[in-house]
């Protein structure tokens, strides 16, 4: 299972904090955005169009990153910490 966490605006859009997806042993980010888009089409689109950053296991990854079973993925709106 892959855990996908939603934060800030995305959590409000999703109406929940996280989802879980079974995408087999490995999956591309496009496959994950398709899976997210089934229930949350707008968020799926944002991920597919690279409009938001994606982290895997607490590091931001590039678009060609391969996600593995058990990974924790997070969808990250633009940060606004630091005062």
């Amino acid at each position: 299972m892959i855990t996908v966490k939603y934060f800030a605006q995305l959590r409000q859009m999703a109406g929940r904090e996280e989802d879980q997806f079974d995408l087999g042993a490995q999956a591309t980010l496009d496959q994950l955005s398709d899976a997210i888009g089934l229930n949350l089409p707008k968020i799926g689109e944002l991920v597919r169009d690279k409009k938001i950053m994606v982290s895997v296991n607490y590091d931001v990854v590039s678009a060609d990153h391969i996600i593995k079973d058990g990974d924790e993925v997070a969808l990250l709106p633009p940060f606004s910490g630091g005062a």
Partner: protein
Amino acid sequence: MSTTTETKARIQREDFSVTDEIEAIKKSSKNIGGIVIFLGTGRELNKGENISELNFEHYPKMAEKKLDEICTKAIEDYKIIDMSIIHRIGPIDIGENIVLIVAAGEHRKEAFEACEWAIAELKRTTPIWKRETTTKGEVWVQATP
């Protein structure tokens, strides 16, 4: 939420004491000559809108990891002696402390450089989000450089 003395970076709901954090970092070396501190506080105005309250949320584990990485890289790249970072989450009133960065060096030049780099890097890499409550309602703030 890590609050051990070993951890240089913390995320916490409660306020912090700048004096206590300075005294803690002073203990790391007797050769500290220049300490530069950035303290971010809640402003009443943002782009002309009156703000009544701020609220910060973070991505647990990843935010702490990024702050730790900033401390480690600042010490390595700027040859400072030590750095600590605290960022608060939850509701924050106008005038209250939000974020503290303490950069301690032998001399002031590297401490200024490291501190200014660290706050820019925090804004760039650390998953923390600010929600402002204004007269128009609640808004998630877009990143500012």
